[in-house]
């Protein structure tokens, strides 16, 4: 029997809620406070809580460090890629602009294209921020043994 049984039960209840709240912050960022930066941190916190309670090795099996490294670069590529895509998608013959989301949708009022652009780049921000926070945590936590039981 683990000495942290209560913590583990509570954490198992909390972690799914934290992740759901993170995605709420991500996809509700246009309407309320929040966005990719905050959502990325919240989702990283869910994994870090898991690592603190169940041990860093369990967290590494769940979210492998390779995925974290790839995710950190992938988010930047998504963001920058949206900019490159807007360079090529402008069909109206207007001047081509990097990160000009109007090109993403042929809506005359421009709103749909703007919404597409914001959602896409926020996904990039989410991917990079959550991966980077986890990468830094892994880098620090991997250097020390797990917290000894008497120090809880």
């Amino acid at each position: 029997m683990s000495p942290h049984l209560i913590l583990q039960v509570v954490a198992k209840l909390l972690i799914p809620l934290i992740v759901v709240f993170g995605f709420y912050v991500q996809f509700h960022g246009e309407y309320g406070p929040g966005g990719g930066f905050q959502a990325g941190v919240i989702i990283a916190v869910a994994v870090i809580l898991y690592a603190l309670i169940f041990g860093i090795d369990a967290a590494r099996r769940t979210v492998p460090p390779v995925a974290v490294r790839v995710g950190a670069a992938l988010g930047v590529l998504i963001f920058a890629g949206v900019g490159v895509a807007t360079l090529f998608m402008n069909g109206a013959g207007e001047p081509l602009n990097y990160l000009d989301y109007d090109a993403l949708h042929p809506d005359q009022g421009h709103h749909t294209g703007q919404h597409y652009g914001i959602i896409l780049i926020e996904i990039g921000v989410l991917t990079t921020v959550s991966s980077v926070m986890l990468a830094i945590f892994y880098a620090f936590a991997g250097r020390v043994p797990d917290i000894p039981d008497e120090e809880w």
Partner: protein
Amino acid sequence: MNHADLTQYLDYLLIAMLLAVGFAIVRLRNLFAVVMLTGVYSLLCAAWFVSLDAVDVAFTEAAVGAGISTVLMLGAMLLTARESEPAGAGRHWAAFVVVAAAGAALFFAIPDMPVYGDPDSPANAYVGRDYLEQVPHDISIPNVVTAVLSSYRGFDTLGEVVVVFSAALGVMLLLGFGTGARRREEEED
């Protein structure tokens, strides 16, 4: 002051608590308590930002300052000693003069600050007002902060994401990928 403006007392209370926590952090010699108190400090900051209607900033402060930073500081703390030597009783007059001069300069600058919530203050008047007026036409999303961050200032945000990525790159290059210590332990076994 009109009587409806009661939230200012909440602000005073929060600032007083920030001061108290700040002094406690300076006085304490136990690293664990200091790390926990910096988390408390961030949480108080976040509460104060909510009181000032800066919810997006408050959200970031609560998530990054009180959440991630505290965990990372705990991780860093495990790598070092927990207690520090008591500071010497020597008087640092030069430092005191610098602090006093900086504090006096700040008090000197207070009368030039715009009143809180002043619509004609430089921060609210020019570009800020343009954003507030243009977002419903240009982008039509309710949260102006998101619109400015992602659309008007998309370049800046891309730069920020690259900075965050570079931070991880730097940490990983300096500390390894978090597997070094474990491998060394296994080799020693």
